[in-house]
């Protein structure tokens, strides 16, 4: 507890006595985590836009003339990856056709008996599931034919896989770059306190005792930098969403207060964890060097 109190007091002293280094480190953390957060939002929005398009993909399964629409609907709903099933009876299909023909709907009467089959309209969770679900549907004895946009689904599935890999890569790159920048910034800050660390070790201070104020310092920078980064990111993203909604209304960007809160928590949490790790490694390395007798 005494060590903890000493470390806290020493951390405040370190911050107050080197405002230049503290300010620079704070700015570095802010910029680094602003880009990490931006990468995160870019990845989330890419996934969101693709999933919106994927949600529009529909598989139309036409039934045999004597097929039971309700039975097929239940079976289709039980297929994995299916998110929604809409049954359309032959009467509803005719009504839909009439509606589509508009002024020329009278032409439908020329057909005599309703020739349109009943069908189910199936929606799936992602483009890559379309082919599998279509195969399941066509294997049902009551289903006569299945129609879906195979090429589009394939392209969309490829795009979705690419977006997934790209998001992961972007996040990993941003995280790694952030960690490296943070580690080196904290190392520079520790280097400016080299003499102090050496003297503390020479008089018998435990390595943990020497390291603690620097670790607290790193965590302080991590916390304040990521809080500021979250606020700046939130404000800028909100105004970006508003301007996109005004100029390109067909693009649906994520705009959810809950998302901002979660993103803020993730950024601050990862900022604290990362700065704790970086400062611990940096100071531990310095202590190991200082304690190594020549």
């Amino acid at each position: 507890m005494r060590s903890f109190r000493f470390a806290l007091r020493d951390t405040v002293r370190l911050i107050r006595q080197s405002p230049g280094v503290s300010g620079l480190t704070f700015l570095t953390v802010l910029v680094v985590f602003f880009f990490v957060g931006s990468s995160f939002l870019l990845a989330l929005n890419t996934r969101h836009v693709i999933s919106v398009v994927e949600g529009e993909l529909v598989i139309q399964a036409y039934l045999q003339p004597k097929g039971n629409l309700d039975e097929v609907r239940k079976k289709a709903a039980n297929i994995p990856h299916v998110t929604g099933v809409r049954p359309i009876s032959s009467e509803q299909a005719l009504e839909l056709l009439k509606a589509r023909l508009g002024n020329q709907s009278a032409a439908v009467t020329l057909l005599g008996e309703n020739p349109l089959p009943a069908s189910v309209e199936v929606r799936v969770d992602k483009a890559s599931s379309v082919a599998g679900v279509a195969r399941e549907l066509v294997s049902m004895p009551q289903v006569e034919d299945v129609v879906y946009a195979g090429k589009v689904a394939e392209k969309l599935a490829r795009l979705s896989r690419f977006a997934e890999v790209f998001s992961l890569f972007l996040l990993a790159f941003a995280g790694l770059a952030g960690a490296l920048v943070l580690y080196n910034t904290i190392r520079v800050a520790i280097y400016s306190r080299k003499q102090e660390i050496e003297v503390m070790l020479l008089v018998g201070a435990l390595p943990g005792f020497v390291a603690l104020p620097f670790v607290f310092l790193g965590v302080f920078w991590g916390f304040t930098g990521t809080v500021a980064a979250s606020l700046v990111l939130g404000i800028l993203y909100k105004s970006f969403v508003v301007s996109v909604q005004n100029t390109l209304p067909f693009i649906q960007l994520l705009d959810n207060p809950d998302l901002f809160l979660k993103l803020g928590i993730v950024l601050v949490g990862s900022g604290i964890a990362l700065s704790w790790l970086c400062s611990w490694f940096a100071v531990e390395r310095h202590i190991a060097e200082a304690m190594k007798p020549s």
Partner: protein
Amino acid sequence: MEIRMAGVTKTFGEDITALEDVFLNVPKGDFVYLVGPTGSGKTTLLRILNRELLPTRGQALVGEYNLRKLRRTRVCHYRRAVGMVFQDYRLLEDRSALENVAFVLEAVGASRKEAIDRAGEVLDCVGMWRRRFLFPRELSGGEQQRVSIARSIANDPLLLLCDEPTGNLDPQTAGEIMQLLLSINASGTTLLMATHNRYLVDAYRQRVVELKMGRIVRDQERGRYEIDEEL
């Protein structure tokens, strides 16, 4: 703490031999002056004993500690038992004299109040009580040396290593510091003091170990700064 050095050699690179085949036994509670010209190996010997340097060859044992085999986790425990007065003071520039002494005590587990009280006591012993709130840059060389001495004795060390502790002090203050070191030694602390101060060595006669070119050339009980012609 007893010191036993057997065949200690320390080289830097291939050309520089700072210590060569040094055998030295210092019983617990002894007071030893290390004398010799600049570059004779006095500071190297003290730095080996403070475990800043490792001997290239030979054994250095201090109390229960074998300095060659000391693990990193044990180094700080060892250093708590050893006080060191550095030739270049090594005070922290951004802390007052009082804080420079108190932080050593806090570093080894004392509470803030205990540390401040004890730091005040030892600064009083070295005559720095009135200037305890000044920073190193505001102190003269001699005053910084006294703070450095106060820091080294604050922890009641079992072994005190002093590298030119009176180098920057006037004769009167040097005498006072010497009295202080003798009283610390009288309480059982083993004391090794590297010095060029002929007056002190001759006035306060103790064991003298003389080094030349890294070798011990004289080890004399109650010796003088230079070879006693009477012996």
